[in-house]
């Protein structure tokens, strides 16, 4: 990876440039909103990337908690496989699926969840999972910030308001708050086992998100407010540009994560060596 990095970096930059060009010049202009709607091509991919990264953090945190014990590890693997199996079976047996979900999409999501679990387990050591958790949380917060900044900037000219209790935007805000608190815990904790505490917090955060979504959703049905982003079908040309931007941002996020991962590994190695040297100094052990 290290040797390929410069090429990958240049390729990603080129891809981002192309995605930008597509967002501004290739995508058709939206009828009602005009050119401002093009913010959508940054806003939505950033959100999906942030969610993916936070999910990665969840998987890494769970593994950090479960892997040390054999029983825990087996339970983790069993649950991951179980999710894949259940979604695949359920996707094709339950007809029709709620919320107009596609069976293929549901099954793919289930398999991907299990896939990510096993990939993380295979490619990362225990210390690696902790670093992965930290890295994905940080980069996730960065992307989430982009979502929260571009959202109001899009809402203001189009709907006249900066903010609204839109389900997705508000849920994203809460997600951002939870992960910022996670990063603060990481930073301020003086315990020797900060990774374990942070992992516990990450699990709590993940458990919280469905509840967050439902509480805001019901609040909105009682207090109807404008919907940012709109639902409904999307012009296939716009969808294509959207996916191009998403792919470009995924590549970018991977690069940034990889850089941060290397930095954190280096930092920890230096700290360990420093601690060791302090111990080995003449007179230190007396």
């Amino acid at each position: 990876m290290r040797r390929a990095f410069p090429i990958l970096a240049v390729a990603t930059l080129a891809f981002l440039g192309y995605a930008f060009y597509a967002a501004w010049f290739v995508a058709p202009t939206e009828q009602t909103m005009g050119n401002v709607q093009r913010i959508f091509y940054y806003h939505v991919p950033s959100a999906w990337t942030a969610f993916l990264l936070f999910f990665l953090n969840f998987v890494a945190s769970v593994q950090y908690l479960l892997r040390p014990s054999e029983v825990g590890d087996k339970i983790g693997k069993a649950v991951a496989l179980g999710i894949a199996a259940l979604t695949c079976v359920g996707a094709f047996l339950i007809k029709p699926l709620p919320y107009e979900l596609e069976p293929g999409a549901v099954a793919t999501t289930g398999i991907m969840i299990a896939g990510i679990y096993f990939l993380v387990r295979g490619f990362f050591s225990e210390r690696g999972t902790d670093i992965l958790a930290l890295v994905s949380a940080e980069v996730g917060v960065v992307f989430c910030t982009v979502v929260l900044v571009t959202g109001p900037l899009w809402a203001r000219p189009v709907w006249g308001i900066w903010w609204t209790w839109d389900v997705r935007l508000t849920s994203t805000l809460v997600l951002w708050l939870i992960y910022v608190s996670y990063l603060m815990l990481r930073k301020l904790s003086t315990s020797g086992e900060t990774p374990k505490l942070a992992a516990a917090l990450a699990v709590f955060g993940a458990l919280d998100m469905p509840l967050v979504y439902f509480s805001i959703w019901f609040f909105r049905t009682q207090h109807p407010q404008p919907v940012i982003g709109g639902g409904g079908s999307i012009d296939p040309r716009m969808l294509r540009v959207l996916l191009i931007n998403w792919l470009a941002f995924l590549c970018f996020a991977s690069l940034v994560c990889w850089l941060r991962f290397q930095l954190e590994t280096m930092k920890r190695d230096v700290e360990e060596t420093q601690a060791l040297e302090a111990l080995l100094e003449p007179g230190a052990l007396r």
Partner: protein
Amino acid sequence: MRVCRATLTKDLRLEWRSRDVINAMLFFALLVVVIFSFSFDPTAEESRHIAGGLIWVAFLFAAVVALNQTWARELRNDVLDAYRISPAPANALFLAKAIGNFLFVSILELLMAPLFVVFYNLRVLGSASSLALLAALGTWALVVNGTFFAAISLRTRSREIMLPLLLFPISIPAIIAMVNGTTAILTGEDSARFWLVLLGAYDVVFTTGSMLLFETVLHAE
């Protein structure tokens, strides 16, 4: 179970003996209510709509003050080390602390609520028993996570601020439920059923999570 009850009675007895902390918190709660009354001075009709939010924000702050000292006594006397090596299950300790906090915060609420009724001329237009259930579920939601995060915050650089930093984001669904449920019951305009169910689900999820993970947190200090 026995460990739980023993720890709980010990805590309650200790609290009862040195009542300074309790008195300070009660006074704090009163001050919060008074200051809110100065800040928001609505008509009787409006007050029913906003009282839900005001009350729960006030309760939240009072709860944080109470939660911050959950483990203070244990820390001072190195009691946690004794717990770690004892064969007692970690979640018995957690449950005892959580229940103790729940009783404590409930007492605070029972004392603050009449004050709010007085200052805002409130009258419950909906079902009072639903309100009591909502308050109980909501208080448990705050307390169970608060006790857990208080343990996590034990070894942090700014312990007192760390607890609210961790607690508030995660409690947002519970707070939404408490505020909207209270408003629904006070105004009698809506049913609070959804909020009660949501709070119930929240309580189940996080009580289970805390019980499962407390062992890890206790040994991580």
